[in-house]
């Protein structure tokens, strides 16, 4: 695998800069992480994106100090992070199921990290009270300080967990699927809010998720993991424009796939032919395109022949199930640009306006 560190050369030993090199970790015979390296700049918001079992949570727990890697190095602010025990790393962590202290009030939960400090570093109790009040207002939970976690909704618990992690003025903020247990609307609201909190707190943040939309919406850069390996790292735009392989393409959003052949600078899919990009692999390829990056053409014009199997209107969008080359693809078209009078059984033609080619059967 080529190093994804190419654009990380300028990330140095800044106070909040994180460098991860060659991290490997196995649980028994099960390898959870294999030679993972990347770097994050001070104040950067990095998402670790991958399916379950990809090692993203293990990597987060390594950063928190809750797991010890078998090999590799983590440097934070120029320090050897792995040599520092978890309790002294000041890495604020928000757990997937929040892990709030169930027998403590919201206030006591948030104050915990300040109250357990050794005497000389512990703020006075009036100061702790003031900080807790500030954090409650930051997470918009004023007035709920005396409640217990069991008396809060999922979204409220999530915000208490974040306030508790921020209370220790973390140098590094770690979030493990923080929205995993919430419903869609709450997730979207909290997402925007979390980004605001991050920008205000100015803390380097690593965020684990399996939801590609969440990762692309929130993060400055996204690291895609699969089977314990880092597959690609880049800004959401870079990833969307140039997914490194079919797995990344597939994982980043709804994808349509057709078999094609590249020969002498031309791409041929069934009876349709177009110019192949200069960097295209030659021979048999898998053609990937997004369902909304297609253009319908007249039935007697150029394009891929397809048969309509069903159609569904979603607001301004028309979703057409088409049978192409023996596969059923769901294509999206703006209602205005869709072929007139779409009906089941009708023949249409379409052409992908943007596509990516990967050698056949590769991943």
């Amino acid at each position, binding site marked *: 695998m080529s190093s994804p560190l190419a654009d990380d050369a300028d990330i140095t030993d800044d106070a909040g800069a994180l460098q991860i090199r060659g991290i490997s970790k196995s649980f028994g015979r099960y390898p959870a992480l294999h030679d993972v390296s990347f770097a994050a700049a001070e104040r950067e918001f990095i998402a670790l994106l991958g399916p379950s079992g990809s090692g993203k949570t293990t990597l987060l727990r390594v950063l*928190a*100090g*809750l797991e010890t890697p078998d090999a590799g190095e983590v440097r934070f602010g120029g320090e050897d992070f792995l040599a520092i025990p*978890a*309790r*002294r*790393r*000041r*890495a*604020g*962590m928000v*757990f997937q*199921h929040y*892990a*709030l*202290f*169930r*027998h403590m009030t919201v206030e006591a939960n948030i104050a*915990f*990290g300040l109250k*357990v*400090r050794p005497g000389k570093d512990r703020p006075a109790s009036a100061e702790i009270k003031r900080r807790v009040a500030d954090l409650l207002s930051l997470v918009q939970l004023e007035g709920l300080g005396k409640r217990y976690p069991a008396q809060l909704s999922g979204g409220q618990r999530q915000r208490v967990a974040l306030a*508790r*992690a921020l*209370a*220790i003025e973390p140098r590094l903020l770690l979030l493990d699927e923080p929205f995993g247990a919430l419903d869609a609307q709450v997730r979207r609201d909290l997402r925007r809010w979390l980004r605001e909190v991050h920008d205000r707190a100015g803390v380097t943040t690593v965020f684990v998720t399996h939801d590609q939309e969440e990762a692309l919406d929130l993060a400055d850069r996204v690291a895609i993991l699969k089977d314990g390996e880092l597959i690609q790292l880049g800004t959401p735009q870079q990833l969307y424009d140039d997914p490194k392989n079919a797995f990344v393409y597939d994982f980043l959003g709804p994808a349509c796939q057709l078999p094609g052949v590249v020969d002498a600078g031309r791409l041929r899919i069934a009876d349709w032919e177009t110019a192949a990009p200069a960097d295209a692999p030659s021979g048999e390829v898998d053609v990937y395109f997004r369902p909304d990056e297609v253009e319908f053409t007249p039935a007697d014009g150029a394009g891929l022949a397809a048969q309509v199997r069903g159609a569904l209107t979603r607001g301004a969008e028309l979703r057409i199930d088409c049978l192409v080359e023996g596969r059923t693809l769901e294509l999206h078209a703006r209602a205005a640009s869709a072929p007139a009078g779409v009906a089941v059984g009708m023949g249409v033609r379409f052409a992908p306006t943007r596509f990516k080619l990967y050698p056949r059967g590769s991943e």
Partner: protein
Amino acid sequence: MGAVRLPGFAPLMLAVVVGAIGVLIVAPLAVVFIVAFSKGVPAYVAALKDPDAQAAIGLTLLVASISVPLNAVFGLAAAWSIAKFEFPGRRVLLAIIDLPFSMSPVVSGLVWVLLFGAQGWFGPFLADHDIKIIFDTSGIVLATITVTLPFVARELIPLMQDQGSDEEAAAVTLGAGGFTVFRKVTLPNVKWALLYGVLLCNARAMGEFGAVSVVSGKVSGLSNTLPLHIEALYNDFDFVGAFSAASLLAGLGLVTLVIKTVLEWRYSGELSAGRRR
């Protein structure tokens, strides 16, 4: 569960259950108190003020006050390590803790006699150094601890397993040291289950007969606990004395039951995880 219509034979089943509880539990319990007070309150008080009875009560309290705290500490340590960590032999350990539940208490007493009795493995060594374990308070304490070993651990393990170790991990990332995590997170999360386990352990420790009877010299006023004292009086046909002492143990049982019920009702969610579902 919602209201389920009882089938036709339910009243019959219920009658059998209520009858059995009445005949086997409530009636004998009533008899204990009836016989204890059969010669009036003064005789009852006198039976309990008897020096041998006083000695038996004192010994029972002493044994419980040593074995119950030790068991609480053991139970906490065992539950904590079994529930929060993975290590080789964990399942074996879990099974062995239950052994005193499945083994006759007499055997639990007998093993100590085999080890420390005059003819036991360490008997000559102990005799040479003038250490007395069997037929002594320390033997009774050992036997009691063996028999009551699983009580606290068994209450805590399912609850701790259910709670997982995320809260402890969170406390560590927030800067807490190992002991602080235990004192401020682990212990408060299991305090009611711990109290519940201690209560059951105490009732059993005070009432244990089989194991204690093997290791005790059964010298009245010296090495008789309450259950042994009751047996001795009964064998001497002193029914008022026997049942007066028995009423103390029965009363302890009733008090334990009341506190246990209150705990279950008030803190059911914080007791055993299995009981909640």
